[in-house]
């Protein structure tokens, strides 16, 4: 325990408090002393009475402000919760879309492999035939252009 010497409304008081709380106690005493000195000219008891009343008034004001701000805090909390749930839903949707895309890519690759296995030589032979026809039609065009 720690010993603390306080002075409130001009009178010294010796108090004990837990170790480490001395500074807080001195600060609280300074607040009470300030309120008591605001009622100068009265008796010590009256000064302390008014200090107690003013502190009670401050406490009530503070409590009212907290209660007033609570609905706002509630709506903020609700907005945050809504945003979080929407973000989670969007993330799930994105993951599902990615899965669908990967599945479609796999299906496409499988279809590509199946089609190339089913018709291994047909496209190249068609290409060769097309290229030969292109050669012949170009030669024909040159001849037609040179017709008298």
């Amino acid at each position, binding site marked *: 325990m720690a010993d603390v010497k306080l002075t409130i409304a001009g009178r010294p008081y010796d108090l004990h408090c837990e170790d480490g709380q001395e500074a807080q106690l001195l600060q609280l005493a300074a607040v009470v002393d300030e309120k008591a000195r605001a009622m100068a000219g009265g008796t010590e008891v009256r000064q302390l009475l008014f200090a107690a009343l003013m502190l009670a008034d401050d406490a009530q004001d503070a409590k009212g402000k907290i209660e007033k701000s609570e609905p706002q805090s509630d709506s903020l909390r609700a907005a945050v919760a809504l945003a979080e749930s929407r973000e989670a839903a969007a993330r799930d949707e994105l993951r599902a879309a990615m899965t669908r895309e990967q599945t479609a890519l796999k299906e496409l690759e499988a279809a590509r492999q199946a089609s190339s296995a089913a018709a291994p030589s047909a496209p190249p032979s*068609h290409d060769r035939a*097309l290229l030969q*026809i292109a050669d012949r*039609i170009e030669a024909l*065009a040159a001849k037609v*252009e040179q017709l008298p």
Partner: protein
Amino acid sequence: MELDLDESSLAIGRIERALSRIEKALTDRANRPAAAVQPATADQSALKAEVAAVIGELDRLIAEADRG
């Protein structure tokens, strides 16, 4: 696979351009005065035979492609 597709596209493009050239040459020829157009020669008969052969080859290719 991609090379095949490119070669096909290239060949088809060449065929289309050559056909346009033939069409233009024939249109020009049809628009010329009759006196300027010379009668058919042996070369032109060979040309007709080549046209018929190419058309036959194209028909064969199309039929093959249709069969898959």
